[in-house]
Structures are given as structure tokens and as C-alpha cells.
């Protein structure tokens, strides 16, 4: 069985970090799982954790003003779930719904934030990497808004 340290080193978001950073990040991580149809978090809840999905599918859902729920994106193995832990007020802005059984590595956002506050090199690296994910998702959202296939 692989240790969390090894698993995390294999994740794209942590590629190329310093040796001490890997150890530090592994110290804030734990394995977790969610049953199919379980909500991992809901909009408005405290965002103190983020996840790296190892198995399964997670739907990011928004509540439609008309009452329904719309899935706006699905995340799968290797995807990072959640960045609200990085930014005040540290609250989720959408629901995350386990569409199938999900196994993930959870990372304690408060623990990492504290470490980033003390080590700005690590803080900058993580911010840069999360900014990259956010830019990619923003770009994808723009394409969805364009309603390309209409």
C-alpha cells in the first residue's frame, strides 16, 4: 500500500515541489471516502479542506433559482476539488456531490494555510498552482457560457 506521501508526490498539482514541502503537505493530508450520492460539501459551509480525487466522480452543483439543481462540472481521478480554503471567507460556493463512490486524499486547508503563512515560498507555489487550475476552469466556464452548440 502506498503511503500518502508517495500518493501526493504523484499528483500533478504537487509535481516539482521541494522535498520539505512534500513532507509538510503529507502532514496535512488524510485518506477519505464518500458513498455514492453523499454530499462532500454544500454551498455556504466552511471550506477548511480540499480534496484530490483518487477514484470516482464528483459533480459540482449549483442551485437553480427556479428550484432545480444543475451540474456544471464533473471531476474525476486526479482532479483537485475545492479552492475556497485558500480565500476568505473560506466558504464553499457550490455543492460537491459524489456521483459514484469516491476515494480521495483530503488536505487540511487550515493546516496548509498556516504553513503557507510561515513559508511564503510554499505559499507562492501553491497559490500559483491553484491559480492555474482556476484559470483553466474559468476558461472552461466561459466556453460553457458561450453555449457553443446552440
Amino acid at each position, binding site marked *: 500500500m502506498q503511503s500518502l506521501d508517495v500518493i501526493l508526490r504523484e499528483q500533478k498539482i504537487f509535481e516539482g515541489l521541494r522535498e520539505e514541502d512534500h513532507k509538510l503537505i503529507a502532514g496535512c493530508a488524510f485518506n477519505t471516502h464518500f458513498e455514492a450520492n453523499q454530499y462532500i460539501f454544500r454551498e455556504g459551509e466552511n471550506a477548511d479542506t480540499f480534496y484530490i480525487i483518487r477514484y470516482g*466522480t464528483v*459533480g*459540482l*452543483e449549483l442551485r437553480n433559482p427556479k428550484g*432545480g*439543481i*444543475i*451540474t*456544471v*462540472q*464533473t471531476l*474525476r*481521478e*486526479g482532479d483537485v476539488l475545492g479552492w475556497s480554503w485558500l480565500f476568505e471567507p473560506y466558504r464553499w460556493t457550490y455543492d460537491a456531490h459524489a*456521483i*459514484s463512490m469516491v476515494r480521495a486524499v483530503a488536505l487540511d486547508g487550515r493546516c496548509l494555510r498556516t504553513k503557507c503563512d510561515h513559508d511564503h515560498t510554499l505559499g507562492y507555489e501553491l497559490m500559483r498552482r491553484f491559480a492555474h487550475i482556476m484559470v483553466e476552469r474559468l*476558461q*472552461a466556464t466561459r*466556453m*460553457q457560457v*458561450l*453555449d*457553443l*452548440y*446552440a
Partner: protein
Amino acid sequence: MLEQELVFEPTVAEPMLPEVFRIQRVKHESYDTFTLILEPSNGRESFPFKAGQFNMLYVYGVGEVPISISGDPNQPEMLVHTTRAVGTVTKAMSELKRGDVIGIRGPFGSSWPIQEAEHHDVVFVAGGIGLAPLRPALYEIIARREKYGRIVLLYGTRSPDDILYHDELEQWRARFDLEVYVTVDYADKSWRGNVGVVTNLIPKAPFDPQHTVALVCGPEVMMRFTAIEFLKRGVSPTSLYLTMERNMKCAIGFCGHCQLGGYFICKDGPVFTYEQMQTLLSLWEV
């Protein structure tokens, strides 16, 4: 050079004269998309074409539009076109019924690189109705499956209700030698598949970038971002093929309506390599 380009080499006997075809069947794919299955009514027994080529479809008394052929090149006795009812001609076309006639000019244009792709992984990326022009290439490659590496279809569409060729997609998904990934832009909770733009599927799609031929069809914005993702993975711009759409009128490179840079889309295309199109892809149609 210019003189040479102006030499017209017809692939069709009478390229400006529509042939009469009769509608054998109309299949409704979604609320606005339909497939016409046509048979010649002039004694012709087959309609050979290459995957990726298009025809000019003439609704008598209304007008003519270019539409890619979406049937099986190995079944040339049947001509198949899938289109959406969006303009005057296609709306009139959507009202045609079994037994009605339609004029056909074609087939025109370049084709997907079926033979060049042999011994390579082949990745199809379709956006919306872009699956229709790619389907003939899929048929061809599936028919000679042993000649190719991995075959991957990435298909993005607006919502689960807009998915084309539903039954056929299910059959393809059931095959062990084809990998099919479908994603929609938005869905309600009844949809268990992927949600997100089709470009999101490329980074994790299973193919060897050094030995891959990618065939892409969809809105130009989508093709632009798709190309970026393929290039990021290391696919060569010469192994990346796109099919372009412009305002085609004569379909034989005479009228100039579909000129894009130095190309006539109808004659030099509609299938191009990304290398040919990369500087032109973001130009607005005049």
C-alpha cells in the same frame, strides 16, 4: 502558380447540376436535429464518397446549403445527412417527408486522413453536430479496426437531450476496442456522465501523443481550444485535422464565397491540418 490554382478538376460529372434524390427515411435525432436517408431516383445505384466530404443539398424552391455526409462510405447505396433546423433552407428541409425529393450536388472537398492514420492512435473530438461529419471516418476506421492503435471518441454537446446517434454511441461504448467519452455542458441530476467542455477530456484521454492522429469537428472556438490541448500533450500540428465551415456556394472553388486566406474551403477543404489553419482559425467570417 495562380494559373495552376485556377485549373478546375471536377470530381463530379456535372458539378453545378443537382441530381434528384428521394427521401427514404427521416430520423429525428433531437428536438432540432434530424437525419435524412436518401436514395437516388435517377437510376444511379450508389453514391461513392470519402469520409469528410460534403454535398450541396437543394430544397426545391427554397435554396441550397452545404452539409457534410454522415453515412457509411462502405454503404454507398445510401446517402445520409444529419443537420439542424436553423436557417430557412434547413427548416424547410426538416419538414420534408418520406418520398419527397431533394437535389444533391457532390460529393465535394477533401477528406479525413483515414489511410495516413493507419498504425496510429486516432482521437476523434466532436462538438455538438460536429459528430455528424466525423461519423463516416469512425465507420471506416472501425471497419478496418486492426490497422489502428487506440481509437478514442471525445464528444461534447449541450445537454443530454442534444446527444446525437444515441443508440450508436451506446454500441460504440460497449465495444472493448473503442473508448468513448461523452460530456455535456450542463445537466440535471438524472445525468450520471461527465459535465464540462469537451476540451477538459483531452488531458486525460488515453492516447500516445507521438503516434496520434486527431480528427476534430465542432464550432471554431471549440476547435481552437481543442487544438491547444492537443499541442500541450505533444501532438504535432500536422497530425491534427479540422473540418472548416464557411459560406460555401458553388462548392467547386469558382465563386470565392468560402475563401479563407489562400484557401477555398469548398475545394481545398473542408478538412485541413491544424498547421494549415492555425493563423486563420480565429478570423471572423466576412
